[in-house]
């Protein structure tokens, strides 16, 4: 811990910049996707990349808990689903202003995170994993029984959210850039948080909560704050996903999804600077690539994940470490 702090402080400017290289490269490439997509099946490419980016936001938010704070939430998809449902219900009820909806999404996911976080954070380790799973499942069953809003079948949105009265979000390109902006925002926010005093307390509490408590920090409060921030960001991903697919469904909050989000974080490399971003893009990309060519793609994808764990410790972030100069985490 101390080493890491010192290293971060003394590292020359260029090395710090280098560690951002993968993220910068990804953002630049993403920004170029819409004009390039004009040459081909535009809607398909945009829909796929937009989905990737939305997932990346959720994964980045999860990494704040998982990689950085050591809090393994197995119910993170519930926040994505909650954001999507708040959006879906509001739009169905005729509220289409994007900022009003966003306000409600933030409020709802913050509240849910505050309540469930306060209960869950009393436990630790694997018990924390399971209690977050429990809350996720409760929300899943609750959404499934909302028959006024489609129940298990989900809810098709016949209108879409309007940004300042315009149809920007209804246009695939407009939405693409809105999502890209949100992604960059989420990335920068979480990166800044990790580097701040707040983030360092969280990270220190990950390895030794007792010592951090002795230093006079209320670990519980710091963790709760992180839990709420991650929940709100995931809620934002849910909002974007509802706007993109014009459809919300309880399936988005099942435990399988929470599991997939975790897998994406690990695949990318937990807690590393670019890991969450890489993980989400790689997971969806790989899935799309394999499923295009093989009907039984899971026969390849499954062992690939196992090999990844056995022989590429630390995920994609670690694979790229020699390039970025980042120290892989054990």
């Amino acid at each position, binding site marked *: 811990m101390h080493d890491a702090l010192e290293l971060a402080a003394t590292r020359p400017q260029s090395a710090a910049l280098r560690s951002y290289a993968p993220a910068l490269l990804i953002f630049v490439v993403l920004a170029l996707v819409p004009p390039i997509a004009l040459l081909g099946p535009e809607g398909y490419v945009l829909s796929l990349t937009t989905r990737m980016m939305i997932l990346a936001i959720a994964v980045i938010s999860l990494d704040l808990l*998982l990689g950085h704070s050591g809090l*393994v939430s197995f119910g993170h998809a519930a926040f994505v689903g909650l954001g999507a449902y708040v959006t879906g219900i509001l739009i169905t009820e005729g509220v289409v202003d994007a900022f009003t909806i966003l306000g409600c999404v933030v409020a709802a996911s913050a509240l849910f995170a505050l309540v469930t976080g306060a*209960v869950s954070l*009393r*436990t*630790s*380790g*694997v*018990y924390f994993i*399971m*209690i977050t*799973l*429990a*809350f996720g*499942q*409760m929300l899943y*069953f*609750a959404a*499934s*029984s909302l*028959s006024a809003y489609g129940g298990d079948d989900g809810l098709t949105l016949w209108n879409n959210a309007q940004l300042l009265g315009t149809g920007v979000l209804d246009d695939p390109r407009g939405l693409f850039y809105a999502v890209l902006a949100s992604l960059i925002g989420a990335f920068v926010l979480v990166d800044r948080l990790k580097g701040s005093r707040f983030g360092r307390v969280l990270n220190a509490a990950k390895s030794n909560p007792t010592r951090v408590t002795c230093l006079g920090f209320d670990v519980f409060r710091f963790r709760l704050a992180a839990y709420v921030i991650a929940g709100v960001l995931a809620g934002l991903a849910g909002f974007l996903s509802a706007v993109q697919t014009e459809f919300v469904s309880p399936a988005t909050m099942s*435990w*399988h999804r929470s*599991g997939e989000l*975790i*897998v994406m*974080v*690990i*695949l990318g490399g*937990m807690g590393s600077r670019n890991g969450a971003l890489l993980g989400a893009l790689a997971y969806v990309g790989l899935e799309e690539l394999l499923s295009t060519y093989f009907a*039984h793609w*899971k*026969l390849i*994808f*499954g*062992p*690939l*994940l*196992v090999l*990844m*764990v*056995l022989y590429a*410790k630390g995920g994609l972030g670690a694979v790229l470490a020699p390039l970025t100069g980042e120290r892989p985490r054990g």
Partner: protein
Amino acid sequence: MSTALLVVQVLNGLQLGLLLFLIAAGLTLVFGIMGCINLAHGVQYMIGAYLAVQFYAWTEHFGLTILLALATALLLGLLLEIVVFRRLYERDHLDQVLATFGIILFVNEAVKVIWGPVPLSLPAPELLSGSFVLMDGLLYPTYRLAILAAGLLVALLLWLVVMRTRVGMRLRAGATHPQIVSALGVDIGRLFMLVFAFGAMLAGFAGALAAPILSVEPGMGDNLLIVAFVVIIIGGIGSIKGAFFAALLVGLVDTLGRSLATDVLKLAFAPATANQIGPALASMLIYILMAAILWVRPTGLFGARTS
């Protein structure tokens, strides 16, 4: 609700609980002793069921089928341990999650390729295909009693092995102080291998046992795995005793909840509202139970330590 119906429901709850116990026992051992989260435990249960269907098709003898399925599940467990798991014990929990998630994907797909996506079934053995009248108009299949008996027998055997034998002593010691046990000359690697394969066999046994009353299909273990995790969390990780009581508790709460939730709600709400909330509440009940227990005892009922 009449007394007879209540008795039947309690019996049903116990039977579900014992089935859960068979799955949870291996899970809690692997988790508690090797500190390994094995999400692939659910597919081992599924493999047991498929093996039983396949061996029955070949032998047409139920007893032989169970024996062969047990042996094969054990071998597959060993294989999995040697190829993958022994490299995972030292790893972070999350690495284990990722690797075992990969195994789930692979096995679920492989089963579909080999046996097809259509649900399969296994007939109950002749000897146990009878039934008796439990309450007016309801027959209770003898086979379900056999499941009850098998579950209790396994619980007893496990208790004897863990508490009364040398291997059991090493297990208990290995769970708390692996380095010391290792230093004392016990081959901890072999011990772990045995425990893992044994856990896989128990899960396979549960799958084979459940095949005659449930349906055998790809992914059949996925949701049961989550319930089994709920069981071992409530019981306290690594505790066989905890898994046993928690499994019975979860089985009872789930079964009784499903038959009572809507009726209870009807006392307070309009029937339409009760029908709306009741089933959702019944599904949530075991999770609410788990959250409540963890609120009071953050390491489960019989859990000594946080992992």
